[in-house]
């Protein structure tokens, strides 16, 4: 595949104005699927969480999950949308092997929620309002695995295997209106928008929102228009963008790629593009064409959804606070400085820090772990920090440091073990034998040995030159292979040296 040419970002912005749009799919964490009583689970053996409805077996019929409707209404309200007095399901008809019925039950001209807006905060503290066109309910498709060929990708595969466990998982698709005026902030705004949606659904408790698992998926629409031109340019829709970092990178890349084509006098093809995390590029997918005639019509197997005003008010009253207000409150509660909080927010880690604190960690410990070592590891591995470790495990790690079982240094090793899949922190401590040696006897033996080996140092200490103890601490820590609390070692050295 020939690599596309790209234009320098600043240069691209000089010549063109980017217009953005997003379609974010949120998988709801209901117990069962959207239209059947099969479990909504992740990671189970293929084709186990399925019913006749999920497979589209002859004679099967869908029935709507009430909880999914309630969640969708809550999400609509949290996005500032109006809730439709009557909304309907519709069939979107297209053939694809992961789509059991070869139509997707979705909503078309009567979505459950429409016309809203979401405030998004950028790193510099400025707030942008993203206009929401609609949020509608639909069902997820199954999962294809492409076998044969070099890459495991669809290109060059010999055959594909289909697992319908995910088929029918409830989704809400949130569609923005065109977003103007993002300018240089376009990539950051993209990331901040998805991050905000993520915060909202986590606060609502309606989705696990783990992008690496596909709980939250973003399709980013990007078009450019020459400065001073009214008419919108042709847009591309980049799919498979499954981390916050990628959202930012993909939008930046598309701006640069499209700018290079347009500046050369070329034209943009309206098409789906696939984001490649490894190369940081997008490649052309299917062109939009008349093959996209989805032949929507009202789903005859399902009835209209007519939420009562009472239900809407009940759900509205139960809404968590808006993200911007929430952030302000959290910053205060946690006692973070502006810088500290921005660090957390910009890393898209507010929800993680909150959950970690809820699991028992102190705010400072939670912050340090997420913005420090975990983010560093994520960077090295090129993945999302949130995908590495659960808030519960981070809290457990902080607890082990606090109660003296681990030093910071040891804790970092334990974290590596947790990330490597060796289990919860306690298990890693056990398996790797990493706990701090708190047995004074062992420490004293090592100290005595070290002091005996360095009589001059002992003399200095006994002369009152306490700082000389440093040399002994080093030797003891080395002997203990780092698994000792240096402060305690120092205390003991002074004690031993003072003894006749």
């Amino acid at each position, binding site marked *: 595949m020939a690599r596309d040419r790209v234009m320098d970002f600043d240069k691209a912005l000089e010549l063109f104005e980017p217009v953005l749009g997003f379609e974010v799919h949120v998988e709801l964490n209901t117990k069962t699927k959207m239209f059947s009583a099969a479990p909504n689970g992740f990671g189970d053996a293929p084709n186990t969480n399925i019913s006749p409805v999920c497979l589209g077996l002859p004679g099967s*019929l869908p029935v709507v999950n009430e909880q999914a409707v309630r969640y969708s209404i809550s999400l609509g309200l949290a996005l500032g949308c109006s809730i439709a007095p009557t909304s309907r399901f519709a069939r979107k008809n297209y053939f694809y092997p992961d789509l059991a019925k070869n139509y997707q039950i979705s909503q078309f001209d009567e979505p459950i929620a429409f016309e809203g807006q979401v405030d998004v905060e950028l790193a510099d503290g400025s707030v942008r309002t993203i206009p929401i066109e609609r949020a509608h309910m639909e069902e997820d498709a199954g999962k294809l695995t492409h076998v044969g060929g070099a890459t495991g990708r669809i290109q060059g595969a010999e055959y594909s295997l289909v697992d319908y466990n995910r088929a029918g998982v409830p989704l809400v698709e949130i569609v923005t209106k065109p977003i103007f005026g993002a300018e240089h902030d376009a990539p950051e705004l993209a990331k901040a928008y998805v991050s905000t949606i993520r915060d909202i659904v986590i606060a609502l408790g309606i989705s696990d929102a783990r992008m690496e698992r596909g709980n939250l998926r973003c399709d980013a629409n990007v078009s450019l228009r020459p400065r001073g031109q009214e008419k919108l340019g042709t847009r591309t829709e980049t799919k498979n963008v499954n981390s916050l970092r990628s959202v930012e990178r993909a939008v930046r890349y598309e701006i640069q790629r499209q700018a290079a084509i347009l500046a050369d006098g070329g034209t943009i093809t309206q098409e789906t593009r696939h984001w490649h995390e490894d190369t940081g590029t997008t490649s052309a997918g299917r062109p939009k064409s008349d093959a996209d005639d989805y032949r929507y019509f009202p789903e005859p197997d399902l009835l209209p959804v007519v939420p009562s005003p009472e239900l809407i008010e009940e759900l509205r009253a139960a809404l968590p606070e808006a993200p911007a207000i929430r952030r302000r409150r959290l910053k205060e509660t946690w006692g973070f400085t502006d810088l500290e909080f921005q660090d957390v927010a910009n890393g898209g880690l507010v929800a993680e820090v909150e959950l970690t604190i809820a699991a028992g960690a102190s705010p400072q410990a939670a912050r340090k772990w997420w913005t420090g070592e975990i983010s560093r590891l994520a960077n090295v591995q090129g993945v999302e920090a949130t995908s590495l470790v659960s808030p519960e495990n981070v809290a457990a790690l902080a607890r082990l440091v606090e109660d003296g079982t681990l030093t910071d240094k040891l804790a970092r090793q334990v974290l590596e073990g947790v990330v490597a899949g060796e289990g919860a922190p306690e298990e890693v401590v056990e398996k790797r034998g990493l706990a701090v040696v708190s047995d004074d006897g062992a420490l004293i033996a090592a100290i005595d040995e070290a002091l005996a080996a360095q009589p001059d140092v002992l003399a200095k200490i006994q002369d009152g030159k306490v700082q000389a103890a440093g040399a002994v601490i080093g030797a003891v820590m080395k002997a203990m292979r780092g698994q000792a609390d240096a402060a305690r070692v120092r205390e003991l050295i002074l004690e031993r040296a003072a003894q006749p």
Partner: protein
Amino acid sequence: MSELIRKSASELSELLASGEVSAVEVTREHLDRIAAVDGDVNAFLHVSSDALDVASSIDERRSKGEALGPLAGIPLAVKDVLVTTDMPSTSGSRILEGYMSPFDATVVAKSRAAGLVPIGKTNMDEFAMGSSTEHSAYGPTHNPWDLDRIPGGSGGGSAAAVAAFEAPLALGSDTGGSIRQPAHVTGTVGVKPTYGGVSRYGAIALASSLDQVGPVTRTVLDAGLLHDVIGGHDPLDSTSLRDEWPSMAAAARDGASAGSFAGLRVGVVSQFTGEGFQAGVRRRYEEALSLLESNGAELVEVSAPHFEYAIAAYYLILPAEASSNLAKFDSVRFGMRVTPPGGGTVEQVMSATREAGFGPEVKRRIILGTYALSAGYYDAYYGSAQKVRTLIQRDFENAFESVDLLVSPSAPTTAFKLGEKLDDPLAMYLNDITTIPANLAGVPAMSVPIGLAPEDGLPVGIQFMAPVREDARLYRAGATLEALLLERWGHGLLAEAPELGGK
């Protein structure tokens, strides 16, 4: 011919209850009958190998003193559109040949729970698309009245099975007349219940907003007994009504003993008289109307001006919904798979499978439905058809303000010859002119035999239509009419049918 197979289900019910006959005897007699005549009739696509075992378990339960429902131990023919766990379910299509469902249709499960003995799966037009059963992938069913003629469709197999005494009861499905028109041409009783009155779960969908499962029998009371078994709310079908239904069998008994239609206002649909109706059909229909009137019914001429648009609306809505419902037959999860020579992409495999697996009528309707829904045509076709649906509902509402029931001939002609309309889809479609409005409006309707057309000696039926949820009215009036005709003829209409088999 064995006397047992000529008995109605309600008669068999008494014999079984009193212990005069066993379910095994009744079942065996019917299996023997199938073996003797179905080679000529071809009503069955599959005959159950478990039926005698099931019957025997019913006998055992009865001998232990267990209280069983009225239809326990009685054989039931099941239209192949309904999925069954113990027999293949093909919906008359090659694409589903040998398909075994992991679950029973709700109506089948309810029938089993009531002790009925599923005896086999009946032939039908492929995916219920047709009015003659000639569109079955497994060969046509023949009308027991004249083996050269069609048994109606799509449920020709169920109607022929009942008319040929191969089963006393059958299940059918009615999307535009597939229960009533076969009843009309075979001299049997067929009921399309109120939409939502009987579960559609497990009925392989043709047009979801029109399909309804219902009974196919030889008497109105039998239809009522079966309706009572299969009706009622099903949480697996979102369109299923939660109503508490009165007993249809009780309504039929009331009607049979009433002996008159006193107080009943009957609307005669003016659009369904005269032109386009075979003379013998008209004659028997007019006689039936006189019988109604002379027995106390008040006849009122009723105009339903939008009924003339019903066929057009139907042949947009049905293909549109069907084109989507039939998309699942793609060779991935079940059914036939055809791989083009030298392999191919999944898209090519799907296309080759659907080309080979679907018959011409199915393809015609899928293409028509795809057209009706496609971008730029939706409003003109599908959207307009949905509006016509509203207008037809209003016609019914207006009519039912002044009458209790509407009547029409059940179909414009008696059974036509096999092959006669096969090359003229439009002529075939016109055969559903009288039955379609009820499906579009969701109202219940019934066809009851009213005699033979003088010119060809073939059965004719009258159709009763009632307001939504008023299925019981059909049973009451149908049973009254049936009783009066029985009194006049001295026997049921099927007694006049020619002997079958014996070869």
